[in-house]
């Protein structure tokens, strides 16, 4: 079972994502912000990360830049899932090493489709 780490400061979003991802037979872990996610990944590298952008302490972009520098941080798929919906923001995220990008609001079909596009489904 592949593990996916959901990083989002909203408990509602984490709950929705957990429900969908559990249905898709992922082992779901959660983190409330980038720094907590970074600590998690330093101990146990997940197969994929669903990443919000605007979070306290460490935002999604800062996390991604630090994450890709971790010894095993190159291979896990990172899918942004954020309300940062401007074209230039999307470009910044992709340049920083994101594999896919979901603009909120999203639905189950979009999440499934994006995970399929990065080869996780």
């Amino acid at each position, binding site marked *: 079972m592949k593990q996916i780490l959901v990083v989002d400061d909203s408990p509602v979003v984490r709950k929705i994502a957990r429900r969908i991802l559990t249905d898709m037979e992922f082992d779901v872990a959660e983190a409330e912000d980038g720094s907590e996610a970074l600590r998690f990944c330093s101990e146990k590298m997940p197969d994929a990360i669903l990443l919000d952008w605007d979070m306290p302490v460490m935002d999604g972009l800062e996390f991604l830049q630090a994450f890709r520098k971790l010894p095993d941080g190159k291979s896990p798929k990172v899918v942004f899932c954020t309300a940062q919906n*401007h074209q230039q923001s999307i470009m910044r995220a*992709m340049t920083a090493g994101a594999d896919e990008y979901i603009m909120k609001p999203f639905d189950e079909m979009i999440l499934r489709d994006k995970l399929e*596009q990065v080869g996780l489904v």
Partner: protein
Amino acid sequence: MQQQSFDALCAYLKRTSGLILDQSKQYLIESRVLPIVKREKLGGLADLVLILERGTNQALAKEVVEAMTINETYFFRDRTPFDKFRDVVLPKIISARQTERTLRVWVAAASTGQEPYSLAMILDEMSNKMPGWRVELVATDIAEPQLTKARSATYTQFEVQRGLSTAHLLRYFTQQGDSWQAIDALRSKVQFRQFNLLQDFAILGRFDVIFCRNVLIYFDVATKSDILKRMGRILAPDGALFLGASESVIGLGTDFAPDTEHRAFHTRGGIGSALGQPIKTSGIAPATPMAAKTPIAPMAPAVPGSRFATR
């Protein structure tokens, strides 16, 4: 909904457009036609059928047909047909047409354009393997409102996230407020025109590939067979026909046969001309151009839009 009115509307749609609606499609009438009945302040579906049968309100008749033929569509729907088009069909055609260097593709139920634009993206990505080729992508649909949207190539945030990778989004679309619009270089690759599949296909010319996905389901067996027979006449002997994932040519004549190796498209049956077989192209009538053919050229890579501030 009264059964008699439902049956009368079904009979009308079959007679005028070849559309087949069985009981399982009753919900479509409820969701798409009853709002028209309400807007027109009619007493019910029976009143609408009376007006349609009278034949005096063509605009209303057209609207009802169009309401019943709206297809769910999204970019790269079902993925496999597009993969097979890129990885199997296109390389074979490129190899077989080295002399003519022309490719004509018909999307027979283009709806709001996601399918033809998906193919246009693939063709753009393959353009380095097709130097000097003339490529035509003809996209037709019966419904003008869908075609208007298709021509505008403007999609909501939801629509561009269905099937479209972020890489494709950034390369081929620009953000316009809350919407995303395909760049001109992509839009110009597709010729849209209104067309009813009951019309004569000859005016469209000959094609190397036909995408007719998720539209035959609306027709009865006789109409399906007739459409396939007529498609067979305008498809190159070594061409490929793509149908919807749940559609099949079984029981619909011998004009097409499933490609048993790839299981993603159909080839013209009974003439030993499946893709990969030696073919003779000299007997193919030249395509009838619908618009000036333009050599395919790679599109410019996406450039960061400076007008979009980063939050």
